[in-house]
């Protein structure tokens, strides 16, 4: 019983969107008869720019943010896990505070940064603030994973004469793969969903990522109610994420909980 309620609560709103997206506008406003249609999706995909553009933009930003975050976080987390406990704890608590910080409070300064350094309307430049915002959680997550690797493994490699790079490449990183996969997924999710910074950095329609594009669709027509098209947009916008969640739920869940708890 409780299980059914939980399912209904989580999935009900989504099914309503799916249902609405397949109905003609007249049926939704109670005028016309029912019947199913793909018209809403056709409109969306043939819009100007086509909806697919936003999805591709989001994938680009997500991929570059993920790469940048991992490139910065892996060495940092490794060093943190090898520092003396007192130093590591001081730095870790700073990082944990940053992890909880609401990013929206930073938008004004980041906006000025974008203006002064000509980063506005550059899709890939967005990965700079995104990596910065994701770093705290990812560092905590990877640090915990590094700390779980027995130190004797690395000492043995040291005796074999491997240098730092070789130890990382051949001993540590293979063992880190699960934690790195979790981190990558979390960064991707974050940059897919991030709104305030994308909103203020991007103004050209064809460069928008999904989140600001949705808000623009929502704001464009306050008085008419093309809710069929809205619903189709929500379905298309969330489908890739739902797929990602279903495929990688284990990694996402472990990343989410490990990162928050160990920090």
């Amino acid at each position, binding site marked *: 019983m409780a299980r059914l309620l939980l399912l209904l609560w*989580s999935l009900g709103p989504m099914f309503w969107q799916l249902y609405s997206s397949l109905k003609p506008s007249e049926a939704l406003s109670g005028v016309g008869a029912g019947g199913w249609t793909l018209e809403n999706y056709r409109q969306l995909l043939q819009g100007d720019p086509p909806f697919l553009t936003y999805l591709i933009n989001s994938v680009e930003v997500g991929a570059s943010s993920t790469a940048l975050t991992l490139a910065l976080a892996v060495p940092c987390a490794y060093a943190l896990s090898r520092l003396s406990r007192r130093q590591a704890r001081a730095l870790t608590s700073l990082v944990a505070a940053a992890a909880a910080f609401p990013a929206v409070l930073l938008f004004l300064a980041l906006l000025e940064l974008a203006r002064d350094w000509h980063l506005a309307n550059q899709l890939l430049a967005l990965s700079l603030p995104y990596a910065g915002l994701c770093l705290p959680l990812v560092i905590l997550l990877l640090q915990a994973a590094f700390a779980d690797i027995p130190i004797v493994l690395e000492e043995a490699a040291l005796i074999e004469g491997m240098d730092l790079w070789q130890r990382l490449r051949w001993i540590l990183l293979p063992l880190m793969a699960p934690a790195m996969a979790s981190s990558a997924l979390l960064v991707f999710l974050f940059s897919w969903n991030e709104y305030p910074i994308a909103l203020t950095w991007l103004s050209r329609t064809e460069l928008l990522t999904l989140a600001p594009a949705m808000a623009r669709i929502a704001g464009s027509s306050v008085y008419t109610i093309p809710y069929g098209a809205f619903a189709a947009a929500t379905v298309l916008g969330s489908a890739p994420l739902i797929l990602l969640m279903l495929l990688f739920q284990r990694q996402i869940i472990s990343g989410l909980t490990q990162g928050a708890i160990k920090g």
Partner: protein
Amino acid sequence: MRWRLWLLMAPAFALLLSIFAAPLLHYLWLSTQVQSVLTGLKPQPIGAQQWLRLWNDGRFWQDSWQTLRFSAASVSLEMVLGLAVALLLNQPLRGRGLLRTFSLLPWALPTTVMALGWRWIFNDPYGPISRMLAGLELPAIPFLSNPALTWMATVGADTWKTMPFVALLLLAGLQTIPTDLYEAAALEEATQWQTLRRITLPLLTPYLLIALLFRLAQAVGVFDLIQVLTGGGPAGSTESLALYAYLNAMRFLDFGYSATLLLGSFAILLILCSTVALMWRWSLRWQGGLR
């Protein structure tokens, strides 16, 4: 050897400092300037004027109240429901993994996407709620046009989205509690309520605190949801501090005041989180005294 470790950390910390610390310092400076259309968007020093303006700004205090009301309501709802869901998912049920995945889905969706969805669900008269009520011949509920209800609609939508996160965190906590404690409690014929009060909740405390502080910080910075679902309306009754600061910068082009507002919100956030942490510590000490 040591310096190599610091070198490895340098790039990450450089980015962290420039993304988190530099903006806050920049706001401190900008809040002593006036930079608006009147000054041709050039900063001019103005002393503490902006802070006086903040102090006398009714809209700032109203938005603070609204933000706190929203945060208190949605975070407490999320904690209670999240705990219930975590307890449910911790039981050895059939299809538990699938249930866990499905219940986490709302958390993964972009806030703007789901806010748009909720706008349609709350729609009067065509949304599903209004239709159901009409089917039962009950009057429609004007969720998005009555100020007394709209803030509750935002709380509902926020709870739907972030409760799974809390549930998941608490579930991870529940799984660290050794099962022999429960077996012992069962031998002593403890009731379910006693088991929850005496075993589960005390051992879950650190997880509850993490979830509470994290969610509180995010709720005080609420922006996406409000902007898309209500736009701060009706009549500013759901406007949050972050939205007000955003409007000042992007619509009124009053950057100095926007920075002051952002720092004001940060101060409120700091006060709130340290109050919670302090109260938590006191309650622990008080409990310790009883034992």
